[in-house]
């Protein structure tokens, strides 16, 4: 502006200044307006963004799987998302304005969580509209206004049925595996297989929560129809237990198994609801009250050898794969244990077989350690030697083997010898001190080249030894008895034959008498031997006739009188009844009396008397022969009538004695239905009574 007048200048300057101020203000306003416009635009933009976000959020909440509810401060539902409504079986509209507590099951309500000012978490059992309970997990938080005052509560609700199911299954699997661990430990090491199996089945049964669990195993080498060895566990007191214990419908079960066999052989596991089974199978299990089942095959060396069956009365019992896998592990463990068990059983059986063989052997079998202790003795050994198992443990070999002074400890050494010996003869001593003759052989058992035991098998040959001894005694006795008269015969005939006695007729006569007498004695001995043999063979013949006893007695006395006189023994006769009659054989009766009298004479002291008496007693005739000799020792009386027995082995005989006389006399008496008894009540000497069946006197008949 180029104006130069001062007044004018002053006025226009003022206007210019005002204008300038106005311009400045306008500019400022314009700026303010522009700023306001910008802010407004920004606000509008924010609003649009917010609205979009809200729409998206609402959409998300509506479509999310988790339930979301918003309740006001009074607990009334002001918002519920479709998922929540669906989870609980309601429509969204039904729930708006309702109490949120409507969901919670009255039965169970579990609260978890903390300070109400913070978000809190709860596990709750909710109910659907139709009353089905199910577990949920809730996370709740309060919504506040700008003044930090609570306006509403937002709750997120999660259906945790599946999670709980999985957790439960995992717990179940863990328990099954624990049971399997126990199974492995017990079954593969324990002696009592059945008990271990039952314990493990109980664990498995409890872990799986079934009503019945059983294992069915077939014996090796038998066709697999169904389990021949069934071990089981059932929930105590259940219906299934009752039926199972009673073994009801077992044929049905066999049939059921037949239906499943092929699938089991193929290694399949069968499980599920009974209601889904084919008719027949369903009927069978229905009858047992079973609603759900699982069958796991048991393999031994890739052969189906059994199965594990789990049954439950609950229709909804689900068989989770983790559970089935754990059961398969259990089945594998059972399979391994069956193998071990059967191997053990085989060993036990074969051990039992051998033990049985050893125990039932009649031979004495022993196993002795190098220090002389008995490692094993069989039953025959114990019975023969009279020792108990406990006593055997305390015994040493030398307590049992009789040491012969001449052999020192050779027998013991032989029995302990590691070289293996052929026939060994030894004398064993029983607990009571009796001697048993044994013959046997031994051989040794070596471990790492060192002898650990010497086994011996011995046969009791005591009887054989006794027979041998008797035979020897018999031969010795008979030989002596034959040679004694022969000595006199040969010597007397030899002297006669030499002609040296020809000048002495009296001596010659004497020698002839010696030969004759001894020839008769020899004949008598031979007759005795033959009679003994005939009696033993039952070939002795007897006449069955009426005989008058007294005449026979007198004849016999006459026959033996010269023998008695030679030994200076007097014979006396005591007859109560002259007419005594008996049934029998005249010659045999005479033979009996002759034997008895001959013994009595031989054993009487010179100058003494032998008495023979006859009497009738009811239906028998009794002839008694008594002497005053040394009598019969008590310990010999039992063997008195045995052949070739003489109580004094040094053979104190005055005129022969084969040891056959009494044996033959008894045989003859018995052959005529009579008997001979030794009178045990006689204090001095010996008295024998011959009893024969009496008959009426011949004259009376």
């Amino acid at each position, binding site marked *: 502006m180029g104006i130069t007048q001062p007044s004018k200048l002053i006025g226009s300057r003022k206007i210019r200044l005002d204008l300038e101020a106005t311009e400045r203000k306008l500019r400022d306003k314009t700026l303010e307006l522009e700023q306001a416009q910008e802010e407004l635009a920004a606000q509008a933009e924010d609003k649009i963004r917010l609205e979009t976000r809200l729409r998206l959020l609402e959409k998300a909440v509506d479509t999310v799987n988790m339930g979301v509810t918003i309740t006001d401060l009074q607990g009334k539902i002001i918002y519920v998302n479709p998922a929540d409504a669906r989870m609980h079986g309601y429509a969204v509209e039904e729930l708006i304005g309702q109490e949120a507590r409507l969901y919670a099951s009255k039965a169970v309500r579990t609260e978890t969580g903390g300070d109400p000012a913070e978000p809190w978490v709860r596990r709750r059992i909710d109910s659907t509209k139709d009353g089905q309970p199910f577990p949920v997990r809730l996370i709740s938080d309060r919504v506040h206004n700008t003044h930090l005052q609570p306006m509403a509560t937002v709750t997120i609700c999660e259906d945790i049925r599946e999670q709980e199911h999985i957790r439960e299954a995992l717990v179940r699997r863990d328990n099954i595996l624990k049971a399997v661990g126990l199974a492995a430990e017990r079954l593969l090491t324990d002696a009592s297989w059945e008990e271990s199996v039952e314990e493990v089945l109980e664990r498995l049964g409890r872990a799986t929560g079934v009503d019945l669990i059983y294992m069915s195993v077939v014996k090796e080498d038998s066709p697999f129809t169904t389990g021949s060895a069934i071990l089981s566990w059932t929930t105590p007191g259940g219906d299934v237990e009752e039926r199972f214990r009673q073994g009801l419908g077992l044929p049905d079960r066999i049939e059921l198994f037949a239906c499943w066999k092929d699938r089991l052989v193929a290694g399949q596991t069968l499980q599920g609801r009974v209601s889904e089974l084919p008719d027949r199978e369903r009927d069978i299990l229905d009858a047992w009250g079973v609603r759900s089942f699982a069958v796991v095959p048991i393999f031994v060396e890739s052969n189906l050898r059994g199965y594990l069956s789990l049954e439950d009365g609950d229709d909804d019992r689900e068989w989770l794969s983790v559970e089935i896998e754990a059961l398969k592990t259990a089945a594998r463990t059972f399979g391994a244990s069956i193998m071990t068990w059967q191997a053990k059983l085989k060993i036990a059986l074969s051990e039992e077989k051998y033990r049985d063989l050893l125990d039932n052997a009649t031979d004495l079998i022993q196993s002795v350690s190098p220090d002389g202790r008995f490692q094993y003795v069989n039953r025959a050994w114990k019975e023969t030697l009279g020792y108990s198992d406990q006593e055997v443990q305390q015994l040493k070999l030398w307590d049992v083997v009789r040491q012969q002074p001449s052999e020192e400890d050779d027998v013991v050494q032989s029995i302990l010898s590691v070289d293996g010996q052929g026939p060994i003869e030894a004398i064993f001593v029983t607990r009571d001190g009796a001697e048993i003759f044994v013959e046997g052989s031994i051989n040794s058992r070596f471990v790492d080249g060192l002898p650990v035991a010497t086994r011996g098998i011995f046969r009791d040959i005591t009887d054989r030894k006794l027979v041998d001894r008797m035979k020897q005694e018999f031969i010795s006795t008979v*030989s002596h008895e034959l040679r004694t008269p022969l*000595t*006199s*015969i040969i010597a007397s005939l*030899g002297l006669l034959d030499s002609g040296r*006695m020809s000048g002495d007729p009296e001596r010659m006569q004497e020698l002839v008498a010696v030969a004759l*007498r001894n020839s008769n004695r020899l004949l008598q001995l031979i007759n005795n031997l033959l009679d003994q043999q005939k009696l033993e063979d039952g070939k002795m013949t007897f006449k069955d006739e009426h005989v008058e006893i007294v005449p026979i007695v007198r004849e016999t006395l006459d026959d033996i009188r010269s023998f008695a006189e030679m030994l200076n023994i007097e014979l006396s006769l005591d007859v109560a009844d002259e007419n005594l009659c008996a049934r029998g054989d005249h010659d045999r009766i005479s033979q009996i009396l002759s034997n008895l009298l001959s013994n009595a004479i031989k054993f009487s002291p010179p100058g003494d008397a032998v008495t023979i008496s006859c009497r009738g007693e009811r239906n028998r005739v009794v002839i008694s022969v008594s002497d005053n000799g040394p009598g019969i020792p008590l310990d010999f009386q039992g063997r008195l009538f045995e052949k070739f027995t003489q109580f004094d082995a*040094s053979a*104190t005989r005055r005129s022969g004695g084969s040891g056959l006389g009494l044996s033959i006399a008894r045989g003859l008496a018995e052959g005529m239905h009579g008997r001979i008894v030794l009178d045990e009540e006689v204090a001095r000497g010996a008295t024998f009574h011959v009893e024969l069946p009496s008959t009426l006197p011949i004259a009376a008949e």
Partner: protein
Amino acid sequence: MAGKDVILERDKTSNRASFAVSIDERAHQAPPKLTRILFVEDERDIQMVARLALEDIGGFTVEACSSGSEALERAPCFGPDLILLDVMMPAPDGPATLSALSEMPATAQTPVVFVTAKVQNHEVAHYLELGAIDVIVKPFDPMTLADRVLEIWHRHHDP
């Protein structure tokens, strides 16, 4: 072969065997004469024939006894050079009598021969173990009995 030793040796280097014979050069004394025999036998017939054989044929002086106890009683007085003893007799039997005779000073050194019919191997071994110098078997030949007794007698004194 008491008193005479035969040794069989093997030479280890040459592997040849050699025999070494050593004979005991004992002073050769004349044996005492056998004259008195005590004959113990419970069988009277045998006693009789044996006595005839020993006395009439052998020319010995014979004292016959019918039992062991009789023998023990009469032996010290009779003083036999040799005793012939039966085995099977009324107590004391032959072995018991032998044992008793050997304990009596008069007969402790007197040789005893058993005359018996019990002559199984183990029995004969037993008699010799008891101290009998020999055994004469029954039945015996009466004509050679004396010779047999003399033979035993000589062998006993000059083995």
